[in-house]
C-alpha cells in the first residue's frame, strides 16, 4: 500500500527538515497551485477528492470550505485558517505523529488551504503538552519564512500568509472549534452557539475555517496528485488513507497509515498484533473516547464513516481503544465520564451538572454501592444528556456514547456489580 501522510515517517522515525521534505516532492503542490491553479480550482479539487474531516465529525472538507464567503461576498478584512492540533480526545495520538515527524507537510497543507480560502492569517492551535511538536513546528515555520513559502507574496505570487503557533493553556473543550476560537481570542473557552458558523463569523468575528491536522496534511497530496488519485486510495466508499491507531492491552499498540475502509480486524490483529496473551477482546471504541462501543461482532466492518455509523458508532478519530475481558467495562466508562465531567466547560446545564451526576451513579455502582434503580437513572441520563441539540456543544453527547453502548452490550456487567451490593443502600436523598 502506498503511504501518503506518513511517507516521510519511517517506522523508527526521525523528524525531517525542510531539505528532506523538499527532496520528496515537498512544496510541489504549493508551487503547482500558485502557478497553475486558482483558488476556485483548488476548492473544486478538494471537493472532488471527497476528503472528509479527520477531526472526528467527518464533515466533507470541500463543502465546509465552500461556506466561506469569498470575493465580493466577503466584507473587507482578514480571513483565518486555524489548524486544530488540540488532540485531547482520550485514546487519540495521531496528530502528534504528523507534527513531530513531518511538520512541513502540515504547513504546506495549511498554506494551500489558506490560498484556497483567501485566508491571510493562519494559526496552529496546539495543545500545550506537545512541547516537541511546538518546537518543531516553530522551526519549520521559520524555515518557510526564509524560503518565502510564508510571508508576503509567496513565491512571487499575489498571495501572502502569516502563520503562528498558539500553544493552548489546556482543557479538552478547546478542541471544539468554536471554543478554540474563543481561546485564540484570549477568552474563556466556552463554545459558541451555531449558527452563525465560524466560516461566516469566527475568529474576531471574521470568516474562519478550523480543520484538523490530519485533514490539512492531506491537502498537498490532493492538490499535487489530483482528486481522482486520492479517491482511489480508499478501499471502500471513503477516499484517501487514514491514520488508524490502537491502544489498550494489545501486543503491539501503535498508529499506522492505512487506506480508508480497512477492516477493523486487520487493524487490530495484523497491525496491533491482536490481544495480549490470555486476554480476549470484549469491545472497542472505534475512534476515541467519545464514540460508541463496538464488539467482536464488528471486527469485519470496514473503517468507513458510514459503515461504522450504520453499526451504531462513529469513526471519530480512527484511533481505537480496546476493552479486554479482564477490564471492567463499568470502570472504563466511569473513567471516561469522569474525564468528560472534568473537562466540561461549565456553560450548559446537562453537561456541567448532568455529567457529575452520571459520574456519581457510576461511582456508586463501580464501588459496590449500586442500586437497581441506578440503571434506570443511567438510561435516563443517556437520553437527557446525550441527545444532539440537548446541549450547547457536542462534548456531552460524545460523553454519553460509550455509556449508552456499554449499557447496550455490557448490561450484565453493570447488573453484576449492583448485585454485589448486598446492603442495597437506600436512596437517602429522595424527596429532598
Amino acid at each position, binding site marked *: 500500500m502506498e503511504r501518503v501522510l506518513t511517507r516521510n515517517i519511517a517506522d523508527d522515525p526521525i523528524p525531517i527538515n525542510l531539505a528532506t521534505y523538499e527532496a520528496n516532492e515537498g512544496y510541489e503542490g504549493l508551487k503547482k497551485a500558485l502557478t497553475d491553479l486558482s483558488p476556485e480550482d483548488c476548492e473544486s479539487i478538494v471537493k472532488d477528492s471527497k476528503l472528509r474531516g479527520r477531526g472526528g465529525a467527518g464533515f466533507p472538507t470541500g463543502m465546509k470550505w465552500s461556506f466561506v464567503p469569498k470575493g465580493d461576498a466577503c466584507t473587507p478584512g482578514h480571513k483565518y485558517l486555524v489548524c486544530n492540533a488540540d488532540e485531547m480526545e482520550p485514546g487519540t495520538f495521531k496528530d502528534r505523529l504528523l507534527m513531530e515527524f513531518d511538520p512541513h507537510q502540515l504547513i504546506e497543507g495549511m498554506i494551500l488551504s489558506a490560498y484556497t480560502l483567501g485566508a491571510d492569517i493562519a494559526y496552529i492551535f496546539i495543545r500545550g503538552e506537545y512541547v516537541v511538536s511546538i518546537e518543531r513546528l516553530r522551526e519549520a515555520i521559520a524555515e518557510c519564512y526564509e524560503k518565502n513559502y510564508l510571508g508576503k507574496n509567496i513565491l512571487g505570487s499575489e498571495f501572502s500568509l502569516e502563520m503562528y503557533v498558539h500553544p493552548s493553556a489546556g482543557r479538552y473543550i478547546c478542541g471544539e472549534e468554536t471554543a478554540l476560537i474563543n481561546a485564540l481570542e484570549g477568552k474563556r473557552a466556552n463554545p459558541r452557539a451555531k449558527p452563525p458558523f465560524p466560516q461566516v463569523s469566527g475568529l474576531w468575528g471574521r470568516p474562519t475555517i478550523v480543520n484538523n491536522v490530519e485533514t490539512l496534511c492531506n491537502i498537498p497530496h490532493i492538490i499535487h496528485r489530483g482528486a481522482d488519485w486520492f479517491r482511489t486510495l480508499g478501499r471502500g466508499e471513503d477516499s484517501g488513507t487514514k491514520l488508524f491507531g490502537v491502544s489498550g492491552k494489545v501486543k503491539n499498540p501503535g498508529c499506522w497509515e492505512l487506506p480508508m475502509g480497512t477492516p477493523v480486524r486487520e487493524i487490530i490483529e495484523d497491525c496491533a498484533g491482536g490481544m495480549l496473551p490470555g486476554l480476549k477482546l470484549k469491545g472497542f471504541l472505534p475512534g476515541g473516547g467519545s464514540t460508541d462501543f463496538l464488539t467482536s461482532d464488528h471486527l469485519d466492518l470496514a473503517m468507513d464513516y458510514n459503515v461504522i455509523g450504520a453499526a451504531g458508532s462513529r469513526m471519530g478519530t480512527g484511533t481505537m481503544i480496546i476493552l479486554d475481558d479482564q477490564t471492567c467495562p463499568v470502570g472504563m466508562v466511569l473513567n471516561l465520564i469522569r474525564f468528560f465531567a472534568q473537562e466540561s466547560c461549565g456553560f450548559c446545564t446537562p453537561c456541567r451538572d448532568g455529567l457529575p451526576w452520571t459520574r456519581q451513579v457510576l461511582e456508586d455502582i463501580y464501588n459496590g454501592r449500586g442500586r437497581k434503580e441506578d440503571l434506570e437513572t443511567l438510561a435516563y*441520563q443517556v437520553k*437527557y444528556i446525550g441527545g444532539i441539540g440537548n446541549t450547547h456543544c457536542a462534548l456531552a453527547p460524545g460523553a454519553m456514547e460509550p455509556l449508552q453502548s456499554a449499557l447496550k452490550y455490557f448490561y450484565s456487567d453493570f447488573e453484576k456489580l449492583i448485585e454485589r451490593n448486598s446492603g442495597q443502600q437506600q436512596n437517602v*436523598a*429522595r424527596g*429532598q
Partner: protein
Amino acid sequence: MPKVLVDGQPIEVNEGENLLEACLNAGLDLPYFCWHPAMGSVGSCRQCAVVQYQSDEDTNGRIVMGCMTEVKEGARFSLETENAVQFREAIIESLMLNHPHDCPVCSEGGECHLQDMTVMVGHRDRRYTGKKNTHRNQYLGPLINHEMNRCITCYRCERFYKDYAGGKDFGAQASRDRVFFGRQTDGVLESEFSGNLVEVCPTGVFTDKPFLAHYSRKWDLQSAPSICTGCGVGCNTAPGERYGRLKRIHNRYNYDINGYFICDRGRFGAGYVNNKERIDYAGLREVDGSYSAIRHENALATAGQWLNDKRVVGIGSPRASLESNFLLKHWLGPANFSSGLSDAEGPGMKQLIKVLSTTKANVPSVRQMQSADAILILGEDVANTAPRISLALRQAVRNKSFSMAEEAGIPEWQDAAVRNLGQDELSPLIIVTSSESRLDNIASHIYSLSPDAIADFGFSLAARLDGSDIEDEMVCGVADILSQASRPLVVSGIGSFSPDILSSAAKVADSLSNLNKKAMLSLCVSESNSMGVAMLSDEHTLSLASVMEQLDDIDTLVILENDLSRRLDRSALQKLSESKVNIIALDVIENSTLNRASMVLPAASFAESEGSLVNFEGRAQRYFPVFEPARDRLPSWHWLIKLASLDNDNKLSALACFDDVVSLLADSDKKWEEIVKVAPGQTFRDRGQKIPRQTHRYSGRTAMNASVSVHEPPQPKDNETALAYSMEGLNRDQPSTLSPYVWSPGWNSNHSVQKFQSKVDGQHKNQTPGIILISSNQNGFGESVSYERTGALEANNWTLIPIACIHGSEELSSYTKEIAELSGNAFIAISEDAANALGVLDGDGLQVIGGSAEISLEVRVVDRMAEGCVGYSVGYEETLSLAPGQTVRLAKDASWIRSKPHLIATDGASEASLGESLYV
C-alpha cells in the same frame, strides 16, 4: 403575522422573535433561566427546551431551545410532549444537584425564579446522592450579599454586569461544575448598577444587603408605585414597606424610561426614610436656640401670627413635589416665590426649558436614546448625573454591531453571536467634557475642554454642520461623524451649570435636524423635580440671591424641603442666620437649614406621600404613599394647605384633597392642563375596588403589633389615592401608574412582569407612561446670546468644575448609611500634570483658596482634566462653599493626614485563587 403550531394550536408570532418569546407572548408558561428580555439569549441553561418537528411526517422531533430558535411561518413545536417535559424536569434536577435547598432562610424565597420554575416543571424527587459542591462567599460591599452556593450558573449576573452595564470587576471564574461568579478578591463592587444583580439573579446568590438586615418576604411587603427621587431621570420604582419601615426598592418596569434596571442610588439611596434624624413632630426654636417638639396645633397657632398681614416669601425646592411647589407659589403669589434653585442652576434651567420648547430635534425617552447611531455628549458627566441614561448609551453604542448582525442574518437576541461578530465595533460616541467619565471606555472620541471651550466647540460644530467654512480639525471630524449618522443623539445638561453649553447643544441638535436627520436632544437635570420647579418659575420668580437681598423686607420665609446651605454661599447663609426673619421650614430630615429655622414642620418623604415629579424630558409622573406617614408627619402639600388656611387672604380654602390640588394646578396655566391625566385620581376603581397595596398572601397583620396589642388596629384609610392599605382587590390589569408590584399565579418573581406587558419587552398592557408637558414649537433655538469669556488664567489659577458623584452628591441619599459609606471623602480632582506641578500625590491634601472658601480637600488624580481646570466633588459638606466656574488657587496642605482606605476586603483570600489547575 406569521403563525407557528404549538402542540397543534396555531399561535401568532412576531417576525424575527424567538420561540420562547413567542410562547410567553401567547401566554404559555415555558420555563427559562438564562434568557432575559433585555439581554437576549445564549442558550446556557437549556431550561426552555421544546420539541421541534422537521416536517408533518416527523413524529419524534428533536429538542431545541426555545430561546435560540427563530420562529418561522408554519414551524411545528411541542411543549407538552413527554420528551420535552422530561428534559425540562431533568434540567431542574441537575440544577438542584448542588443547590442547598435553603429556601426557608433564603431572602429570595417567595420571589425566586428558581422556585417558580421548579414548580412549573413539576420536578420533586431528587435522585442524586452525592456530595454538594460548596463555594466560599465574597464580601462585595455594603449593598450586595453573596451566597454562591445557591448559584445555578445561568451566567445572567456576568452578562448583566459586564456585557450590559460595562462593569469590569466581576465575572465567571473556574469552569465545569465549579464555575464561580464574583470578583478577583473581596471588595466593593464598582459598578453603579450592581444592585440589579439582585433582580437579575434568578435565585438568591446576589441579594439586597440592607434589606437582608431587616428582612420580610415579598408577600409581606406593602408596596405602592413610586418614582425614584435620586436624580432627574424619573425611573419607576416599587418600594416595599413593613412595620413602618421602608424595606427595599425594586425596579418597576417602565417601557420608556428604566425598563428592567435602575442604578444603585435609586435602589439603595432611600434608606434615609428610616433614619433616626427624620423629623417626627413640629418644633419651635426657643430663645436659647434649642428646639422643642410641640403639638402641631400649637405650631400652627404660632405660625398664624407670622403669616397674617405679613410679607411672606416662599422658597420652593427641586426635590419637592410639583403640587407642593405649586401650592407655595399659588398661595404666596408669583412675586413672593423663589424656585429654590441655586443661582448657578436657576438660569441654566431657564435656558434648558427654552431649549426644550424650541428645539427642532426630538426629545427622546430613555428607550429611544438606545436607537441612536451616533452620540455626542457635551459637557455632561451622564454616568453620575443621570446614571440610567448612561446605561442606555452603553446599549446604543452597540447599534453598529446590531446592524452588522442584521446584514449577516443574525437576530438581535442572539446575544453572544452578535457580540462575537461585532467584537469591539461600536457606534461613535463622542465625549466632550471637562473631566473623565465612566463612559470613556466606550467612547470613540474623547476631548477634555473647559466649560467655555465646550460651548465654543458646540457653536462651531453647529456652524460647520450648517455649512460654514471652519477649519478646526476636531470640529470637522465630529461634524463628519454626526452627518453620517441617521439618528444622531446630542446629550448635554445642567451638570456643568453652563447655560452656554445648553445653547450650543441646542444649536448642534437644530443643525442636525436641518440636515434631515432624526436628530435627538437630551438634556440632563440635577434633581428629581428640577424640571417641575423650573417650569413653575416665571418672570416674577425670585432668585435666591434676591430673596437674600430683600431679607430685611421679609417677615416670614416658608422654606419647602430645601437645604439652603447647599445652594447659598457662606455670606448669604450667615446673613440668613442673623436676620430677624421668621423661618418656617418643612422637611423630611434634619439639616442645617432646619437648624436655622424658627419653626420646623415634619414633612412626609416620597414613600409616605403622593405627588408628581417632572423628569428631564418634561414628563410628569406620580408617586404614591407606600405607607401612612407616622406621628405628626404630613405631606408638604398638606402642611401648605394648613398654613394657607391660617392666612386671612386664603386662596387655598377650597382644597379638600390631593386631587383638588392637582385640578387647581391644571386650571392655573395651560401648560399644566394635562397634569390631571398623569394618573387616575382618588375615585378610580378597578372592578369596583381600590388597588391593594398588599399582596393576596400578606400575613400576620394581627401579629405585627402583638407586642403592643393583640387587637388588630383598623387599617389606615387612604382618602387621597386610588390605592388601599389592604389586600382586598385585584392586582391585574390596572393602569401601569397604579401597579404597586408585579405578581401572577406561578410567577412570584419580578419575571411576572411579562404577564403585564403587551408583548415581551413591550409596553405595559395598560400603559400610562406619564405625560410630557413640554412640547417644542420646533422653531429652533435661534441666535445664541453673545457671552463673555474669561481670558487666560494666571499661573496657579484654576477654574472649578463640579464633579457629581453617584454616591455622595445627591442630598437625601447621602443620609442613607450604606450610601454614606460608599461616598468616600470630598475631593479635588486634578490631572496628573497638575499633581506633578503642585507636588502632590493621590490622597494628599490641597488647600483650595478663592472667594469665601479656604478649605483643604483630598487630592484625586484623574485620567483626564481640561487644561486650567480642577474638579470638586459636589454636594459634600466640605465643598458646599465652592461654586462652579469659580477661580481658585491651590497649594499643597503640608499638615494633611492621609486617610486610610476604607471599605476594603474583610474576609480573606478569594475562592478564585484556588484556581482550576489544582483540581483533584
